[in-house]
């Protein structure tokens, strides 16, 4: 099953290993997971030592923004898999539409994030702000982790959107097509990982309070 894939077209011999490419992508995803896990560990430990402060600080985050953004990312994951499914069936333009939709939802996510952060920063809740420095250590830690973790996640969303834009060009040019779409699949894996990280960030910063 997982042998090197071969394709013979017009006498031209192409050597491919889709399974290998996918395994490599998963290995990369594990390193990403480890990166975020370190931050999740910090969150868990600091929360254990400052339960009340984390509770109080958590009341100030915008649960509605967080919930909408969760749904936006989940929907973008749906359009991502649909883009792959459409290309597998040879429907290039349907795939292009779904992929464009995914990138668009990435912009929506970042837009909501922008309004959210703007509102918090205007309230004086940002790292090193005079308001925050007068609060307890636990609350300072909560907001530090909030900006670090959602910020790092946001950077991943931006990176994901760059990768998906490249995929869009590849599909339009035809180098990613019905018979060779491993690049799109791997880009999809990256996008879903971003989704999974948000699935855990959402309850920790918006719900548990």
């Amino acid at each position, binding site marked *: 099953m997982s042998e090197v894939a*071969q394709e013979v077209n017009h006498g031209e011999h192409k050597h491919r290993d889709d399974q290998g490419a996918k395994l490599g992508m998963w290995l990369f995803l594990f390193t990403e997971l480890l990166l975020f896990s370190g931050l999740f560990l910090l969150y868990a430990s600091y929360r*254990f030592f400052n339960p009340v402060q984390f509770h109080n600080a958590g009341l100030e985050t915008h649960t509605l923004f967080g919930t909408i953004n969760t749904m936006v990312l989940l929907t973008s994951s749906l359009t991502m898999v649909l883009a792959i499914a459409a290309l597998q069936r040879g429907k290039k333009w349907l795939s292009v539409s779904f992929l464009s939709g995914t990138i668009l939802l990435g912009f929506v996510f970042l837009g909501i994030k922008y309004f959210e952060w703007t509102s918090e920063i205007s309230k004086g809740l940002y790292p090193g702000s005079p308001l925050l420095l007068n609060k307890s250590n636990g609350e300072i830690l909560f907001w530090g982790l909030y900006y670090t973790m959602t910020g790092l996640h946001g950077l991943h969303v931006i990176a994901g959107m760059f990768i998906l834009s490249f995929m869009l060009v590849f599909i339009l040019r035809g180098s990613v097509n019905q018979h060779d779409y491993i690049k799109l699949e791997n880009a999809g894996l990256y996008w879903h990982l971003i989704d999974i990280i948000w699935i855990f960030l959402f309850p920790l910063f918006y719900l548990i309070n």
Partner: protein
Amino acid sequence: MESQQTKSHAEPISYSTYVLVWLALIALTSITAVVAGINLAAFTVIVALLIALTKASLVVNIFMHIKFEDFIFKIFLGVAGFTLFVIFALTFVDVLFRR
């Protein structure tokens, strides 16, 4: 058949399967948001994390195709998951029993 190249899954998964999974994910998100308003005391964290784990496993299994991949992918994921579990467990043992 399109060509002789190996595919991770011979039959492409139907659009409707993906849409159903998406509906489940949205439903779980709504449930977790509503449940957060109810005071479950110590269970709040556990319920929220269990729902998050359920959502993540749906995404990994269906959207990321792990359910349909070769066994080697499951071994990869298992080893990575176990490693993370050990890191978390050891850290928690340290943090919980300080002083």
